[in-house]
């Protein structure tokens, strides 16, 4: 994945709690075998509504989404991350995230920033007041800033995720360097394999 150290851009305030991954990308889109083109399906159930915040002209071109608590709960579909990124989002700020979504985001370079609910409210307020305000998410210094008004908050990110984002590391490549340890583990594993259970056509022998 591409390294990410700073996301700089405008925000969209998505004032909703419990936005699950079915809302982010409806299941109809999951039939596709490609990894691209999911942006058109983003928030599919809501996009037809002209009042939906993503359709507001003043938020066009935003790269940071400000969401409510428990963003990305539910289904494990990484398609949710692909859809957000394909649409143009590079960072999501919320009081909390679904575990699998947060993990999937880190594998794709989508920055998930957890701030206190009160800080998210403040940020929402600043953006609604002036949608053109520039916001900076600094992964290197773990800081969110609205430079125009001098608003600044620190955020936490586990050190591994931060390193991975900053360096754009490929997890699989890193793990493969531990080939010896994996082979050693396998040599003493007691867990059964599927060996001998099924024939070539998948029938039980």
């Amino acid at each position: 994945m591409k390294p990410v150290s700073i996301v700089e851009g405008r925000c969209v305030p998505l004032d909703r709690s419990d936005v699950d991954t079915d809302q982010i990308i409806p299941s109809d889109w999951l039939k596709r075998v490609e990894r691209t083109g999911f942006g058109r399906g983003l928030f599919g159930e809501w996009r037809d509504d002209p009042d939906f915040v993503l359709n507001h002209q003043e938020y066009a071109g935003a790269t940071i989404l400000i969401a409510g608590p428990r963003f990305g709960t539910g289904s494990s579909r990484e398609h949710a991350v692909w859809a957000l990124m394909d649409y143009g989002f590079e960072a999501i700020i919320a009081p909390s995230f679904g575990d699998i979504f947060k993990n999937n985001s880190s594998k794709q370079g989508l920055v998930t920033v957890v701030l206190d609910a009160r800080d998210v409210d403040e940020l929402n307020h600043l953006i609604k007041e002036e949608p053109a305000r520039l916001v900076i998410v600094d992964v290197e210094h773990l800081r969110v800033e609205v430079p125009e008004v001098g608003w600044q908050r620190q955020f936490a990110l586990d050190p591994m995720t931060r390193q991975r984002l900053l360096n754009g590391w490929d997890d699989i490549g890193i793990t493969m360097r531990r080939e010896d340890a994996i082979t050693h583990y396998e040599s003493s594993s007691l867990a059964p394999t599927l060996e001998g259970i099924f024939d070539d056509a998948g029938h039980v022998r």
Partner: protein
Amino acid sequence: MTARTLFEKIWDEHVVASPEGEATLLYIDLHLVHEVTSPQAFDGLRLNGRTVRRPDRTLATADHNVPTDPMSVPIKDPISRRQLEVLEENCAQFGITLFPRGHENQGIVHVIGPELGVTQPGMTIVCGDSHTSTHGAFGSLAFGIGTSEVEHVLATQTLPQQMAKSMSVTVEGEVPVGVSAKDIALAIVGRLGTGGGTGHVIEYRGEAIRNLSMEGRMTVCNMSIEAGARAGLVAVDETTIEYLRGRPGVPSGEEFEGAAQRWRSFTSDPDAVFDAAVTIDAASLTPFVTWGTNPAQVVALDGTIPDFDLMSDPDQREATERALAYMGLESGTPVRDISVDVVFIGSCTNSRIEDLRAAAGVAGGHHVAPNVRALVVPGSHRVKKQAEDEGLDQVFLQAGFEWREPGCSMCLGMNPDTLSPGQRCASTSNRNFEGRQGRGGRTHLVSPVVAAATAIKGRFATPDELIA
């Protein structure tokens, strides 16, 4: 030695490496694969010239998008058809055992693992599906992963993981008559909320859990993710071992007894300490139904739709108001007065033989209400065949239910089984999210017996209402 939780024991047994300052590299014993979250992962392997490290620890089935029409009806949707073909091509290329549509072992991935006996205690099991937590019922550490992680497991049979916290959810005492495993699951999700289990692995404990069959335990573990927990598990006991005895994936004779002896160690030590603990009084449970658009929005079937005006927290008030508007419901309406258009009995939560027996036991001798469409979708071909051997298909058909081919079906509406906008469905599945079962569809999560009684009455009902 320090007392350990079941989760810690399984974790410790699977550590490949735990380098200072890095995530632990965890070995994965079994990787279950399906058509929806795998194609991009296989593409990734090809792109990087990588292969599947352990095809003998990888098992694939078609489930999410398969139509539930008979095999003689071709798949109309070219995109669905293509996805299933791609799964077949990928499994053939990388030497992975696959159960394609119509195969005798095909079914929902979380139904076939246990019924084939390839889900076993103490294992680490992953799948690109959040309901992988189901397999935790066997005292295994099982969790859902995204497609990048699917690719990682395919290539290395391992995953870098941060250790989660542990939470015990104890359901004390015996549940009242008429309360099923699904009601226990809904009660737990209602109590914890959609985020209560985030960052935790839940161990379900207590008399009410011990008294459940393996299928009931799977129902409870299945919905762990609805409370935000990636995994939920139940300690191994004789119920676990007797369920596994004689299944294709387990050894036989003395070798089985040896395995069983090892499995019995997969329990938490008596003085193990959990990071969080929740206790629920089983006697307080009752049949439940969800009223809103997330699975924690639960109310007793005897209850009424909540009143958002009475809520003091503005966020909760707004979320409730939004959910009720979507669901087309008025505060204060008695649940039993709400009529339904569709009833769906199926999904990885409730599509196993005991679920079908329970539903058939309620439906037998009655008929589905006029204007209600009721579908029964067995979890697998094995479940379907067993149900047919027991004559359950005839019970359902005579009662006016549709008896369909196995798959995920209307749980997530990726196949043609979907709700139309505004349709209201009593569903034995696990998610009532907006549009989950079809755009504009309204989902209420219930147990199999409540679903069956509701189909007969045409409105939310419990089986006792059918006894005239």
